């Protein structure tokens, strides 16, 4: 790819070329993944946005919806290394990060040599992450936040780009360890997989019972992804739009919004609202979406559409919400309806 270097001051034409390139990359990835993934276009877009922002995704859905297939296909199309970790209760942190093993060096001396774990990959699928113990889950914390792991007092950098896609099954709660809020907050997006409709089911049946499809083509590489991450951060954001995003965050906090946008549902059902990390995710995701839409600036719609994946896992609901079956999505929809775009 012919991209300008980060240090050179880009021209307007460069910006236009970047936007077109990012758009093309996304369209190519979507088209390639559509060969094996039925539906989930919005989900694929959100995963790509998280990738473009350097974030990690928590995928939640019942078994058989193609979570693992989607992540695996994503790794293939990006031409990045991919690893899958099946989380089980007996999984140990060292099984993820790697461990020091005793080995002979060139002179025949015994030395400890670091054996890299499966976390050392560009795309890591943490399958059924809530089945592992908290100790093991927390092994991912440093990797997700710092992009490095420390074993035996020595830090090891992870490959870049690095992205964790964790899945969890919302139905089977027996013998699971729900992710602590601190860890959930480190996920850039929480994405929900819906069951396919009739047409989707027909296509799934066609695709999976016929001849195996050709291997997916590589449409992006790591360097291109890193460039896109840089472009995303350069998308301008109007103060008015930023104010709107801030108002949304404040409106999710019971008793914290002094502008009168707090809804009755928030007061009643929310224990803790979105964190500052939620605002960062929201703004960054909105910028990435604007870039993918071929727009040089962030719009209110970008913020609005990115609010659910960015904030749904950051709202901590109370028992009353559980009792009344109120979900975070309902709360966010209520907040979006209440908070005006322009002041």
């Amino acid at each position, binding site marked *: 790819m012919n991209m300008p270097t980060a240090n050179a001051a880009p021209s*307007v034409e460069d910006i*236009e070329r970047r936007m077109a390139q990012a758009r093309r990359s996304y369209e190519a990835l979507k088209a390639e993944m559509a060969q094996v993934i039925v539906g989930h276009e919005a989900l694929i877009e959100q995963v790509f946005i998280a990738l473009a922002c350097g974030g990690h995704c928590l995928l939640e859905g019942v078994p058989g919806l193609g979570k693992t297939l989607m992540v695996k296909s994503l790794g293939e199309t990006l031409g990045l290394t991919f690893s899958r970790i099946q989380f089980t209760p007996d999984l140990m942190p060292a099984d993820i990060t790697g461990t020091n093993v005793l080995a002979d060096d060139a002179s025949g001396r015994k030395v400890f040599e670091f054996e890299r774990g499966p976390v050392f990959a560009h795309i890591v699928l943490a399958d059924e992450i809530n089945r592992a113990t908290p100790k093991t889950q927390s092994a991912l914390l440093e990797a997700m936040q710092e992009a490095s792991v420390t074993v035996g007092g020595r830090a090891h950098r992870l490959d870049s780009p690095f992205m964790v896609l964790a899945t969890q099954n919302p139905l089977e709660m027996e013998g699971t360890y729900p992710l602590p809020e601190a860890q959930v907050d480190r996920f850039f997006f929480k994405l929900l997989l819906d069951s396919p409709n009739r047409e989707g089911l027909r296509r799934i049946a066609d695709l999976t019972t016929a001849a195996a499809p050709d291997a997916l083509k590589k449409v992006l590489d790591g360097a291109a992804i890193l460039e896109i991450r840089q472009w995303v951060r350069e998308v301008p954001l109007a103060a008015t739009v930023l104010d709107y995003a801030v108002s949304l965050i404040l409106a999710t906090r019971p008793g914290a919004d002094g502008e009168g946008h707090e809804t009755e549902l928030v007061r009643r059902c929310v224990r803790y609202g979105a964190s500052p990390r939620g605002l960062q995710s929201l703004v960054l995701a909105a910028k990435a979406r604007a870039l993918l839409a071929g727009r040089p*600036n*962030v719009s209110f719609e970008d913020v609005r559409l990115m609010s659910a994946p960015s904030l749904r896992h950051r709202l901590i609901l109370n028992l009353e919400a559980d009792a009344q079956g109120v979900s975070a999505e309902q709360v966010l929809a209520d907040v979006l309806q209440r908070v005006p775009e322009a*002041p």
Partner: protein
Amino acid sequence: MNPGALRQTLDTGVAAMLAWEQRKRREKTLLAALAAALLAALALPLFVTLAPPWTWSTPIAAFALIAPTLLYAWRWRGGDTVRALAALDKALGSGERMTTAWELTRRNDARAVALLVLREASERLQGAKFRKLFPRRWTKQDLLVLPLLALWLALSWFETRVGHSSAAPQVSASVARELRDFARDLEETARAQGLPQTTEAARELARLAQRGIDAQTPDPAFQREIAEAQKQIATQASASAQDASGSAASQRQLDELKAELQSARDWLAAAGNASRNWDEVLGRLSELRQHGEWRQDQGGKTLTRDQVDAFLDKLDKRVTAELDRRALRQTERRLGQLARGEQGEEGGTHPGAGGAGEKDETLAQVPEGQPSAPGEKPGTAAGKAAPLPQFSVGEQSAVKGTLGEGASSNVLLKGQPTPGKSAVAADPVFAAYHRRAEAELNNERIPGELKGAIRSYFLSLEASK
């Protein structure tokens, strides 16, 4: 791509849009002010009576007061610009390019991405018809001004055309007219009874009433003027009380006493210095006889003519002052009724006549359970009469008298009837009865249809005399 040209295009376009929005804001503000002014003009007469010039100028004055206030309160602010730009983005479907470009130009952001936003915003802004994108939208509140205006015009027209001919005078000068009638009657009666202060007060009241009628002063305002006049009358009555006798005599007795005093003067004038039997003649006048101490022997001497004249003068002055005081008090009460908007009561304008429910000052001094001297019930024995206040006529005459007691006035005729001659001079008798009759006529206790007959009777007597 010329950044300066792009910026100018954006600035020009946004400025035009903002000018249009600000104009609409001003129009809406002025409409709201007009509606408020009309509402005020419609509501104000419910609380305050306005003179005709104010009827038309009230909405103008209210508008002049409200419009600047609203224009200031609803002035264009920075937040309005942001909202207008957001609305423009929505109308043009430009994905907040206008808003972002506007902010970037304000920040003098010269990055390439900022120029790209500016260029795309300028392209979308070119050829935009703001008046079509943001047409005037009249809300129900805006349209309210039309029915309000129509209502106010209709009411103003009705008041101007119809009210001036019929309703307005009834409303605006009815109290003044009532006062004028009252003042005229009062003056006539007071002049007939020779009450100088009441006569003067009646003239003042007549002038006040005429001014109110000429100016078409509204009733509430005129009632305030009447209240002021009432205070002056009260002051005047209090001042005259010092000269008055403070007598407990009834109004009727005072009237009769005054008539007898006049009769006595007439008789004395007719008799001249030659006559020395005034003691006997004056003693025949019943009310005057109540003050009969003048007849007592003053050190064994009979009063001289001058002393009698002095006594009569002082007594007349005191009686007149008392009648004046009572008339002023009565006038004050009547003015109070007019000031309160109450209807006049029976008793008319006679200076001494009390209104309904009014307690006679004389009666007020009588203890409960005792018959009142002048008003005791007919057919009941007059028990022990309450002691009545005495006239103090001064040291010279040292004559004391009581008023208020006794039966109706009469003239005792004494002497041996001699055929062809009368021992009593006709003139004083005639004068006494004539004045008594005039007093009765003025008291309006005589039915109206009989007044003419009574006057004719006395005129015939005078003619035959």
